[in-house]
């Protein structure tokens, strides 16, 4: 049975009246609470709910059948029973989670755990074999173009045209995302991300750190409400990486942006994330706040927790699916 963390049914019910719920894009009349939640207890087959630290009115839902909870949640993303199979290889096994608006969630797992595939499916670049993804209430399988303008993505797996200057690249993406006052927006991002001195240099001539900052500027060009980051500080020196993390923290706080972050840097995850989803061989093996994970596994840092999970040394107390 899945663990319930600080569940308070009356708060979920209260959130129905919260105006931010209406802004989340979910239909106000859809769905009802499962009977077990109204009773204040849960059964094996019904969804469980976790409070998230950074969204007082929001809930993070773990489990199945969560669509019935839509109107009660201020949720940016709902992934339900997501599965991806390539021929006979299972990349992602049925995976369900949701992200509260304004939260930062780390997606952890070893190589081949399914992180990039999961993010690719959320962005609509990879078609799930089964399951569903809803972003701000829109089904990504059929309604992707209604919501893509509210999302953005940064990854070392994608690049920007090398021959175009940084300014030209950002101008093109600003226009693609329908940004008004693109010149002003580019100037502000250049100032914030310290790009000013090489705005008019070809993107291909930049160092790895500079390219990462440009990619981050591209990912922030439309002030995304949902930002997906795949290894955002890979290949950066410690100083620049620290600077990028500080920027992301500030951005999340100022814009109430929801962030899903895939990373192998455990210090980064501990610093940025209020929740961690751990994947192994395509399956969700744990889902909790960094502090809860440390307590659960009896470790002092997330790296040791990661190694416990990766090497199968799972002796955690109160594990999600124990």
């Amino acid at each position, binding site marked *: 049975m899945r663990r319930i963390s600080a569940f308070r049914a009356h708060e979920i019910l209260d959130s129905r009246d919260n105006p931010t719920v209406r802004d989340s894009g979910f239909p106000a009349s859809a769905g009802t609470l499962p009977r077990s939640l109204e009773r204040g207890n849960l059964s094996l087959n019904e969804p469980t709910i976790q409070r998230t630290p950074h969204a007082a009115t929001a809930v993070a839902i773990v489990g199945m059948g969560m669509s019935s909870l839509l109107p009660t949640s201020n949720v940016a993303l709902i992934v339900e029973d997501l599965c991806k199979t390539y021929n006979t290889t299972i990349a992602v096994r049925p995976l369900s989670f949701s992200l509260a608006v304004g939260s930062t969630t780390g997606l952890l797992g070893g190589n081949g755990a399914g992180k990039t595939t999961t993010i*690719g499916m959320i962005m609509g*670049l*990879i*078609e799930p074999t089964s399951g569903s993804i809803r972003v701000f209430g829109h089904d990504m399988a059929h309604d992707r173009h209604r919501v893509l303008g509210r999302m953005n*993505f940064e990854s070392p797996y994608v*690049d*920007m045209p090398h021959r175009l200057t940084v300014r030209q690249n950002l101008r093109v993406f600003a226009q*693609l995302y329908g940004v008004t006052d693109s010149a002003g927006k580019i100037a502000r991002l250049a100032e914030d991300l310290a790009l000013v001195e090489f705005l008019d240099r070809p993107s291909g001539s930049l160092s790895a750190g500079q390219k990462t900052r440009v990619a981050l500027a591209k990912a922030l060009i439309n002030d995304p409400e949902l930002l997906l980051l795949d290894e955002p500080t890979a290949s950066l020196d410690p100083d620049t990486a620290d600077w990028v993390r500080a920027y992301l923290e500030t951005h999340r706080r100022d814009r109430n942006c929801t962030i899903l972050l895939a990373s192998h840097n455990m210090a980064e995850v501990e610093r940025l994330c209020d929740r961690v989803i751990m994947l192994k061989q395509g399956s969700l093996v744990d889902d909790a706040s960094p502090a809860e994970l440390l307590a659960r596994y009896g470790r002092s840092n997330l790296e040791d927790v990661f190694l416990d999970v990766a090497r199968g040394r799972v002796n955690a107390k109160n594990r999600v699916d124990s």
Partner: protein
Amino acid sequence: MIAAAAISLGRIGAMVLRYTYLLRSSWPRILEMVYWPAVQMLTWGFLQTYLVRAQGVVPNSAAIAAGTLIGAVLLWDILLRGQQGFSFSFLEEMWSRNIANLLMSPLRPAEFVVALMVMSLIRLAVGVVPVTLMAIEFFGFNLWALGFAFAAFFVVLIVFAWSVGLLVSGVLLRYGLGAENLAWSLMFIIQPLGCIFYPVATLPGWLQPICWVLPPTYVFEGLRGVLIDHVLRTDLMLTGLAIDSLLFTGAAFAFAWLLASARRAGTLLQTGE
């Protein structure tokens, strides 16, 4: 997938802007666009001049003198460069690993395709228009003087070029840069079958029905009709356009299917140089 609904001119403009920046940043690209059409035109133009001077030795020299060779080579360049302008613009996204950035943006596939068509026209304007002017100067052949006939030839050829470009782009999306050679070479299969430099009747009987499936055949037959008989065969042009419509529709469906297949196979995140 290629739905016309909710097309944004702003997003199409963004893509055209992106390719225009690229052209402006690279003089070799601009030079290359003019270089090959110019070389082709000069080679065939001088060959035509030689054949005309060999009157009595070479049959049909009157037809050659009318400009069927140089006219055909100019129209062939419109066809080839039109397709390459479309496909190479698409390839730029693959080479720069930018395709995922585009497909996760609000840009719709139909807008992407329209932007590629616009770029195909812009690259033609840069590469082929100067060569048509050179043909007037060097050989006294004025393609523009054909007027409405030239417009009809152009439309049939460019729609076919876009159909091939769309199909090649879909294959590239699905199978990656391993299929890059198609962008360079696929159109050359049209050269013998499209009857560019000779009438359809020249080919064996069993091959002729295949030729008549290809819209360029109608254009090059039409060109000879205009230059030799001074008649524009509207029936040929209408048939060519009708086949074009079918082929373009088929290519659009193929592109949509290949894009969906690439999403299923997860290849959109793996494209690169």
